[in-house]
C-alpha cells in the first residue's frame, strides 16, 4: 500500500516518462519522416509537462498572477498561495524553441519531398543507392 501511495504521489512524472518514450520511439524507429516530426513534438511537449509538474504546489496554490494587485503593493505575499512561476517562464521559451524546430523540420521535409517525391526514409535511401550505383 505504501508503494502504491509512493507511485500515486508521482503519477505525473510516470506519465511524462511514458509520453517522452512514445515520442522518442517514434523519432528513432519510424520510417516516415512526418512521423518522426510528430514524435519530436511529443518528445518536447513531454519535457514541458515535466517542467510544469515541478512548478505545481498542492494546497490551494493559485495561478501566478497577484490578485487584487492594484494598490496592495506593500502587503507581504505568501509564497504558498501562488504556484512557482519560474518553470512557466522557462517553458514559454521552450515552446517557442519547439515551434521553431518544428518549422525548420517541416521546411526540410518539403525540400526532401520535392527532391525524392517520397517521405519514407527507406525509399529515399534506396533511391540514393541506385543513384550511387550508376
Amino acid at each position: 500500500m505504501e508503494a502504491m501511495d509512493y507511485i500515486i504521489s508521482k503519477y505525473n512524472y510516470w506519465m511524462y516518462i511514458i509520453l517522452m518514450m512514445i515520442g522518442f520511439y517514434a523519432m528513432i524507429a519510424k520510417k516516415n519522416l512526418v512521423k518522426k516530426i510528430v514524435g519530436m513534438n511529443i518528445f518536447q511537449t513531454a519535457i514541458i509537462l515535466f517542467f510544469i509538474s515541478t512548478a505545481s504546489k498542492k494546497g490551494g496554490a493559485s495561478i501566478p498572477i497577484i490578485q487584487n494587485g492594484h494598490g496592495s503593493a506593500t502587503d507581504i505575499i505568501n509564497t504558498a498561495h501562488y504556484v512557482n512561476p519560474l518553470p512557466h517562464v522557462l517553458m514559454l521559451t521552450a515552446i517557442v524553441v519547439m515551434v521553431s524546430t518544428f518549422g525548420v523540420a517541416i521546411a526540410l521535409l518539403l525540400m526532401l519531398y520535392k527532391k525524392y517525391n517520397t517521405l519514407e526514409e527507406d525509399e529515399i535511401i534506396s533511391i540514393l543507392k541506385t543513384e550511387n550505383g550508376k
Partner: protein
Amino acid sequence: MTENAAALIILVPLMASFINLVVGLRWKEVCYPLTVATLGATVLLSFSIIQTVISKGTITYEFAGWAPPWGIAYVIDHLNAFMLAIVSFIGLVVSVYSKKSIEKDLPKKTAHFYTLFLLLVAGLLGILATGDAFNLFVFLEISSLAGYALIAVGDDRAPLASFNYVIMGTIGACFYLLGVGYLYIATGSLNMADLAGLLPNLYGSKVVLGAFAFMIVGVAIKIAFFPLHKWLPDAYTHAPSAVSAFVSSTMTKVGAYVMIRIMFTVFEPQFSTEILPASAMLGWLAVAAMLYGCVRAIAQTDAKRMLSYIIIAEVGYIVMGVSVGNRMGFTGAVLHILNDAFMMACLFLAVGAVEYKTGTRSLNSFGNLYKKMPVTMAAITIGGLSIVGIPPTAGFFSKWYLVLGAIGAGQWVFAAALLISSLLTAVIFFKILVNIYFGPQPAADLQGNGAAVISEAPVSMLFPISIMAAGVLSLGFLSGKIISSVIQFTVPGGF
C-alpha cells in the same frame, strides 16, 4: 564600453544579422562587407575580453541588473575568453573566405546566408559566455537551427543529412534540457555558480545522477561522440564548403567546452571520477572513437568525408584528455581544442578551394595538383602534418600533453590508442601527400575534357587559407606561451 564588452560580443553579431536581412532585400552586395566588418569587431571585442580577464580576473555581467541566482549572468573566465577568441577569429576568417564559394553555390540567397551565419556565430558565442544553464540551451538552439539550415543548402544529399541532424540534434538538446530540469528539481536553481555551491550536498541523490547522465549524453550527441556520431559525416560532407569549415572547426569544440563546464564547473571533478565512474567510461569510449574515426577515415575517397571521420577521432582525443583527470591531460585537451579548430578550418578551407576549382571532392582528383594550386596544397600539407602530430606544427604539442596526461593517470591503453590513431592518420595523410606531389594527374584533366584549366583559387580564398596554415605553424611555436598565460588558469581546482 569595456565593462559592456561581455554583452556586446553577442549583441553585435545579433544586431548585424537583423540589419543584414533588411539590407539584403535591396542591396545584396552590402551583406558580405557588413558581415566581415561585424565579425572583425567581434574579434576585437574578444581580444579586449581576453585582456581584461588576464589582467583583472573573471568578468561577471548581470543582465537586467538582477543578481545571478535570480537574473541571468555572463561569467567569463580564462576558458570562456579563450574559446570566445577562437570562435570569433575562425568566424572572421571563414566569412572572408565565403565570398566566392557562396556566390557560386547560393547566388540568390546571399543575404539569408550571411544572416544565418551571423546568427550561428552569435549562438556559439552565447553558449560560451553564459553562466546560466537554461540560457545555454536557448543559445544552443539558435546555433543549431542556423546550423541545420546552413548545412541543408549544400549539395544534393544535404537535405537528408540535415534532416537526420535535426532529429539527432533535437534529441541531444532535449536531453540537455531534461538534465537542466532534473538539476532544477533537485536544487531549485539554474545558475551554474549557484548550482556548483548547492550540488555537493546532493551527490548521493539519484536525481542529480540522472541529471549528469542526461546532460552528458545530450552534449555527446551534439559533439558526435563515438556511439552517437552517425549524423556527423553526412552533415559535414554535404554542407557548403565555407559552412563545413566553420561548423567542423567550432561546433564540436563548443560542445566539448560545454562538456568541460558540466563536468568541472557545475559538478566537482570528484563527482565524475569517484561517485560516478563516468570519466572512465568516457575515456574508454574516447579510445573507441579515436580508433573508429581513423579506421573509417582510411577507407574514404571523398576528402570532406575523410576529414569528417577524423573529426570524430579528434573529439575522442579531447574527451580522453578531459577524462584522465589530471593537469597534463586537461591542458592537452584545451590546447587540442584550439589546435584542432585551426587544423580543421585550414584543411576544410583548402579542400573547399580545391572543390571550387575542380568541381570534385574526390581524393583522386588531388593527383599532382601542387603544380597548379601550390598555396592550397601547402596548406593541406601543413594541416595534415599537424593532424598527424609532426613536431613543429601545433598538433604535436597538444598530443604530447595528452600522452603525458594519459601516462600520468596510469592509463597506458589510452596513450597507446592515441599513438595508434596518430599512425593511422599518418597513413592517410602520407598517401594523400604522395598523391599531391608525385601522383598521376586525374584522367579527366589529361583527356582535356576537364573543362577549364585548373589554377590557383582566388585571393579571397587563398588569404584565409594561408592565415590558417600560418596559424597552425605559429600556434606550435606559441603553445608554451599560450599555456602559461591562459590555459594553466583554466585547469579546475583539485588537479
